[in-house]
């Protein structure tokens, strides 16, 4: 019985040597980052044009925009899924034609994939999407003018500002 204990002791000591000295430490120096690109990117502001035939003004016929806009957002930080990222759109400033205004509530969009969902501008600041960090999300938005408000003929210009935030 004593011999059995001796062999068992050898087995344990043979499997657990503590010889190593080098220790590797990998320290995280990566700064949390977020990025957003709406449209073509760069300093230029992407423009969507809606041409409303005079015979259709305010008759409720949806008027599609001239082109789709790609929205691309990404956020990274460690650990993953630790920070809530928010994509917002600010449409509080209406389109204007001189002193005449046209609210952005007359515009909505459909998403190609739905990763950044379809919706309608609320004329203020609204959350389009929330997601946790360590992801990249993109989609194509196809904008439509609802064409329900009677407005004076002319050219109206306005701007929606998209903002991405992460705490």
């Amino acid at each position, binding site marked *: *019985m004593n*011999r*059995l204990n001796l*062999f068992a002791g*050898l*087995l344990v000591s*043979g*499997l657990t*040597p503590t*010889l*190593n*000295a*080098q*220790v*590797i*430490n*990998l*320290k*995280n*120096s*990566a700064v949390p*980052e977020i*990025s957003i*690109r709406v449209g073509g*990117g760069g300093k230029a502001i992407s423009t969507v044009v809606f041409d409303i035939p005079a015979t259709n003004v305010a008759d409720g016929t949806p008027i599609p925009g001239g082109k789709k806009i790609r929205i*691309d957002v*990404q956020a*990274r*930080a*460690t*650990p*993953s899924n630790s920070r809530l990222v928010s994509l917002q759109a600010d449409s509080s400033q209406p389109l204007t034609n001189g002193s005449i205004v046209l609210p952005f509530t007359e515009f909505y969009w459909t998403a190609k994939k739905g990763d950044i969902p379809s919706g309608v501008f609320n004329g203020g600041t609204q959350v389009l999407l929330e997601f946790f960090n*360590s*992801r*990249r999300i993109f989609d194509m938005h196809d904008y439509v003018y609802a064409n329900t408000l009677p407005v004076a003929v002319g050219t109206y210009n306005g701007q929606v500002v998209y903002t991405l935030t992460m705490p």
Partner: protein
Amino acid sequence: MKKGITHFLCVLLPCLLCNSVLAERLDDRLSPQQELNFQLNWQARNRFDLSDEQLNALVAQSNPIETRLDTSAYVGQNARIFLQLPVDIQGLKSLQGLRMSWTTRGRFADGSVTPGGRSLLFEGTITEAVMTDFFSYRFELDSRSMLHDLRFEPVYDIEIQKP
């Protein structure tokens, strides 16, 4: 009862003999630098065409680091030396999330390894009491696998090969 013990010892003895021949851990305490600290940073920057894997890729690289292995007990013997990473690494959530690769100055082989795996450094006759080389490491880590800073010990194993 006596018969039972005899049978157990008969099985245990060959196993112990096999283990002692197959793999032993080498002492690397002769290495001049003991604590090796590396800074992880994002691998890709200012790009929008990244996959999630590329977006979350962290990387760290080192200057050549001198490593000395005590092989004095094995001079004259044919052996294989491996570099192994432990399975359990502090701060790491997923084994697939980390890869360590290296280049050397030729005494040992270049290679790469993931946690729980090992890579052949040397095969042949041990001729020196201390085997030395300089390792330039590269660490690639998926930040989604990172809980906090990582800390681990590389393990150097030697296998003596019978003639």
